[in-house]
């Protein structure tokens, strides 16, 4: 176990370093930032000065070595746009995203497990059909569509909720809801599917023969046996949220890392790109290790 963890951690660290290297070189293939930072009418001289100032005039391998050297001293570089440490920028945004992602994923997973299990318990029933329909409509609706229409209805039309922004709990409702839609829809389907197979297993007969209550059969026995794919898919969805819920962040003015990452990619703010990727990648690698450990907890036949 411990040795497995150690191995996993070292592999992951290597992968993150590989990732950063990859990102370092690849981002530099996407064009020169000076064109974006300086006004269109600035002179060649100004551009040269800009490149010199930001070390962009050096050969790329020198830049990379410099980056590595700084990295060892935990210096992640300066943001070109924001005039401050790139890591500080990333770390400021990340918790905002994380909060939202955790709430949305937890809620949607819990809800999806409930709805999906009940749908699978009576396949073909009205509940099953409605649950599928509702969850799928939510999952396939364009997220900005739901977000903007939601704002138009609940904030402008009814005046029940604030349009956007952060602060009170009311500010959480719409962003969380929009974020939950897709995970919920996907998870309901996955839960339903795997539960159907699980419910047909012989050990469910044993449980019935024991006289277990229905909810215990469904949630205790069948669900437990079908959690592996559910956990995986939920984990993947969590990853994509941790990686940034761009639409929600930008529409609702939630200062998260997704928008930051997109902006800095488009603006070629390389140091920030690197730092945000470092932060999210670390989170994602930890999440994936946790999920793998969870497999072993969920299914005793799986051992590492």
């Amino acid at each position, binding site marked *: 176990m411990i040795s497995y963890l150690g191995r996993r951690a070292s592999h992951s660290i290597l992968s993150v370093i590989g990732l950063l290297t990859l990102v370092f070189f690849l981002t530099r293939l996407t064009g020169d930032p000076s064109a974006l930072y300086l006004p269109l009418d600035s002179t060649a001289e100004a551009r040269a000065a800009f490149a010199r100032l930001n070390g962009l005039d050096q050969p790329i391998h020198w830049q990379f070595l410099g980056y590595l050297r700084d990295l060892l001293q935990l210096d992640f570089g300066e943001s070109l746009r924001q005039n401050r440490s790139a890591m500080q920028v990333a770390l400021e945004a990340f918790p905002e995203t994380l909060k939202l992602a955790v709430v949305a994923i937890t809620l949607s997973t819990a809800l999806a497990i409930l709805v999906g299990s009940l749908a699978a318990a009576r396949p073909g029933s009205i509940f099953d059909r409605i649950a599928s329909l509702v969850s799928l409509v939510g999952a396939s609706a364009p997220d900005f569509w739901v977000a903007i229409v939601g704002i138009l209805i609940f904030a402008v039309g009814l005046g029940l909720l604030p349009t956007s922004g952060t602060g009170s709990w009311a500010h959480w409702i719409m962003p969380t809801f929009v974020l939950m839609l897709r995970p919920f829809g996907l998870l309901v389907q996955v839960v339903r599917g795997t539960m159907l197979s699980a419910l047909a297993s*012989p050990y469910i007969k044993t449980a019935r023969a*024991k*006289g*277990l209550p229905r909810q215990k059969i469904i949630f205790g026995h069948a669900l437990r*046996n079908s959690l592996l794919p559910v956990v995986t898919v939920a984990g993947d969805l969590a990853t994509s949220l941790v990686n940034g819920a761009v639409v929600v962040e930008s529409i609702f003015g939630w200062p998260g890392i997704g928008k930051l990452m997109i902006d800095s990619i488009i603006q070629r703010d390389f140091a920030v790109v690197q730092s945000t990727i470092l932060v999210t990648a670390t989170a994602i690698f930890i999440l994936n290790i946790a999920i793998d450990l969870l497999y072993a907890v969920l299914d*005793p*036949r799986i051992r590492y």
Partner: protein
Amino acid sequence: MSNATILKVEGLTVDFLSDDQPVRAVDDVSFHVSRGETLVILGESGSGKSVSTSTVMDLVDCPPGDIVAGSCLFDGVELSGLGAEARRSINGRRIAMIFQDPLAYLNPVYTVGRQIEEVYESHGAESGKGARAKTIELLRRVGIPEPQNRVDFYPHQFSGGQRQRVMIAMAIALKPDILIADEPTTALDVSVQAQILDLLRDLQRETGMALIMITHDLEVAASMADRIIVMNGGKVVETGIAREVFSNPQHPYTRRLIAALPHGNAAEAPNRRSTAIAGETLLKVEHLTKHYELASGAFSSKRTFKAVDDISFEVRRGETLGIVGESGSGKSSVARMLLGLNAPSAGKAVFAGENIFDMNGKRLMAFRRKVQMVFQDPYGSMNPRMRVYSIISEPWVIHRDILPKDRWKARVAELLELVGLLPEHAERYPHQFSGGQRQRIAIARALASEPELIVCDEAVSALDVSIQAQVIDLLADLRTRLGLSYIFITHDLPIVRHFADRIMVMKDGRIVEEGQTAALFGAPRHDYTQSLLQAVPQPKWLTQAQ
């Protein structure tokens, strides 16, 4: 005894529906059982025993099952059409069931302890520490070693017989009014079987439990039954007081069964042992050892358990080596290692001059073609998504040279007939068969690849005597004709005596005794062997008379 009748089944008819004509599994079956009484259901494999008892428990999925007719009156209550909640309070507490295929019927992700405790908790009988203590006590009573540790193990960490006992423990936890035991001792050696049967009898005495026991084992039947019903082709063909059925069977099927009863009682009755053993050593096992690493939780530290402890033996071409031994003594572990499914902790096994454990790639492939296994859990060993046709023909897909494709269909039909099934069964899926039928499919599959050595792990344990005889004849015939060798793991002494040339007795991971069949049966040296031979159950009417 019908004055205290607790369960009365009347005119039960069950169909299995599909696109085609419904399959009638149970046809107008009636029986009843009283408090304290034991009703034994005998019958051919696939005759509807399991289905009719499952119906009593409401465990047949409807649809595709279809209860065409019939009533089940339990303690004055009509069971069919009972509400879910009422049903729940009866199942497990008042009527309990032991299933035929213990691995599939245990939830793989919960410890056995948890699964037993659940019975207490869900009926509000006991919870927390109390439930756990009771669970450990139960496990001890069914003969699980070190129950206080084993309670936290998962089903896959138990041997076949141990799982069966876990199942039994679960069923008797709440001392039900009726216990339906579907082949409860198929994986138990004679001594453990005796212990379990005693336990059941004790329970009956203590609580007046009615016992419905399905078995293929006539000795067990005789030792337990008050009354017997015999089923064939979905119908009850004979019913009566045990002693009368045994002494004066009416139906031709029953007669055939009873005729086989004192199987191998007489010391050297006609047997199917090899006549000529070629003498060339096919398999030589040396110092084979297997440790299982035990970690009950994901994080707890490891302990090891010695399941197989330095054993050596050999098998010669055309020979049958019988392995008998205590349940949990490591028989299946040996088999799995020989097949290369589990890595041994130490030792080697030389097959045709080469160590199995060093084999790789092509050689391993060639080896696996020559050695086949019939698994102890036939249900689990078949892919639920594959039809029987694909299951049996799979070896030919893997080893292309065995049989040209155009002959597969005919050969599958032939194999199915050899093991007593119908060619049409090729189109069905594993879940559509009875326990014994699945076991026969597994045998057919093992035969399909025309191997040199077949490892049979309790391969005929769920078959009734008539089909058992048919299968054994088939195996013996193949041995004579093709020079096949067998490693025959079984708990059934009459069968090994009848079929095996040499016998190896295992206990606690070691070989305690080994020798030619006749010699070993004639003069057992080791205490354990002696106790095995003596543990043959006696008919109930005799023991009661004493």
